[in-house]
C-alpha cells in the first residue's frame, strides 16, 4: 500500500514549560551551559527526520526489571503504565524508550554512584523497550528511593525515574524525569522546580491509580509523556 508520509511540524516550545539551563544550587550548570545566545534556525529536513529504528541498533532489555521469586528486588513493587503521545495527542508507537532509576534504597548500579546506600543484587535498574501502536509501554519495577546529591547542602533528589525517548524526528528526542505524587521532597527539588510553569511541572509527576486487584501485588502508576511534533494538516489538492 502506498503511504504518503505525513511531515512533522515542530514549533518553538513555550520556554516556561522547560527547565532553566542554569539552576541555583546545581553547581555544574554554570560551567557547562552556553554563554552565547542559542542560534535560531528554521528546521530543515535534516532536523525533521530522525532515527526511527534506533531500537535495531541497541539491545532491548524488556520492561520487567523487578525480578521474581527469590530474585525479586527489595522495595515497593510498582507497575508503571507509560503512554507516549505527540503534541496532537496522537500515540507515538514503535519508539525506543530507555528508562533507568535507583533501587529502593536510592542507589544506582553505576560506577559514579558512591556507597551512601546498599546495592540490591537483584536490581540493575534499567529497562529498554519499544512502545506499542497505542504509544504504550508497561514497566514492572520497584519504587526508587530518594538520594542525597553530593552538594552537601541538604539537596536530596526525590524518588524519580529517568526516561530517554526518540519519537519521529530528531527534534522530538527527549530526556526527562518522572516523579511520584505526594512526595515531600518534590517541593524543594532543584531539577523538578527548574520548570517555571506549574502545569508543566505537575505533568512530570505520575498519577497514582487506586488498587483494583490487578495486578494484586503492585501499586499502579500511570504517566504520560508528550514528545514534540504535530502532523502537518493534509492539503487537499
Amino acid at each position: 500500500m502506498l503511504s504518503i508520509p505525513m511531515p512533522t511540524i515542530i514549533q518553538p516550545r513555550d520556554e516556561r514549560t522547560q527547565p532553566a539551563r542554569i539552576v541555583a544550587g546545581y553547581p555544574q550548570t554554570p560551567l557547562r551551559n552556553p554563554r552565547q545566545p542559542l542560534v535560531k534556525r528554521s528546521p530543515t529536513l535534516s532536523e525533521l527526520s530522525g532515527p526511527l529504528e534506533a531500537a535495531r541498533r541497541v539491545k532491548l532489555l524488556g520492561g520487567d526489571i523487578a525480578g521474581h521469586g527469590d530474585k525479586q528486588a527489595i522495595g515497593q513493587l510498582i507497575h508503571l503504565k507509560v503512554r507516549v503521545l505527540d503534541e496532537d495527542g496522537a500515540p507515538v508507537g514503535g519508539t525506543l524508550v530507555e528508562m533507568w532509576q535507583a533501587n529502593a534504597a536510592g542507589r544506582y548500579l553505576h560506577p559514579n554512584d558512591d556507597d551512601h546506600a546498599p546495592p540490591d543484587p537483584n536490581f540493575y535498574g534499567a529497562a529498554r523497550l519499544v512502545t506499542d501502536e497505542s504509544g504504550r509501554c508497561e514497566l514492572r519495577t520497584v519504587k526508587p528511593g530518594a538520594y542525597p546529591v553530593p552538594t552537601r547542602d541538604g539537596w536530596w533528589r526525590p524518588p524519580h525515574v529517568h526516561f530517554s525517548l526518540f519519537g519521529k524526528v530528531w527534534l522530538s528526542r527527549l530526556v526527562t524525569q518522572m516523579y511520584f505524587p505526594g512526595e515531600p521532597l518534590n517541593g524543594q527539588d532543584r531539577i523538578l522546580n527548574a520548570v517555571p510553569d506549574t502545569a508543566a511541572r505537575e505533568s512530570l509527576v505520575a498519577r497514582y491509580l487506586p488498587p483494583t486487584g490487578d495486578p494484586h501485588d503492585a501499586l499502579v502508576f500511570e504517566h504520560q509523556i508528550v514528545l514534540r511534533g504535530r502532523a502537518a494538516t493534509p492539503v487537499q489538492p
Partner: protein
Amino acid sequence: MMIPTGEATIGPFFPPRYVDQGANDLTMFDGRKAKGEAIWIRGRVVQEDGAALENLIVEIWQPDADGIFRHPADPRHARADPDFLGWGRAATDDKGGYVFRTIMPGAPEGRAPHINFMLMFSGLMRILKTTLYFEHGMDVVLLAVPASRRELLMAKKQGPGSYRFDIRLRGENETPFFGD
C-alpha cells in the same frame, strides 16, 4: 494541543550498557557494510574551565552517502542505503574524547554535507544541539550562525578519512548551539 514534556538532565547515572558496543560505528548495520567513504570523527568535549567531561553522551544523525535520510519525510527515502541507519551514540572517555566511525554524508537537498550532534550530560538541563560541517558553503543552518562563529562548526581534517570536531560547552571559542 498538548504541551511537550519538560526536559531534564540525563544525570550522572545513565547506564553504561546503554552505550552499546558498536553503537558508535555507523558504517555497519545488521552485519552489512554501508556504502560510501568510511571516515573517523574524533573530538574532545570540555566545559568552561577546560576540564574534560567524562561519560557525556554524544548522539549523531545524518544522511547516507547520497545525502538521503532513512526517514519517510525524505522524498528520496525509498532509495536510501538499506545498510545505513544514520544514527549513532558514543560516550566520552576520561579525557573527554569521543569517536565515531561513519560514512561521509552526501549533501541533502539544499544543504551542505553535515552531521547533526546532540549532547546529553549531568548539568545539562536541556539537550544541546549542534551541527558539524566539513567546509563552508551555502547552507541555511550554517548561515543562521553569526559569521564570526561559523568556523567553530568546521571539522578539521587530520589525515585521509579522519576528522576532528572538538566541542566547548561554554567560554572562549564556545561551540555554537541551536535553540530548538
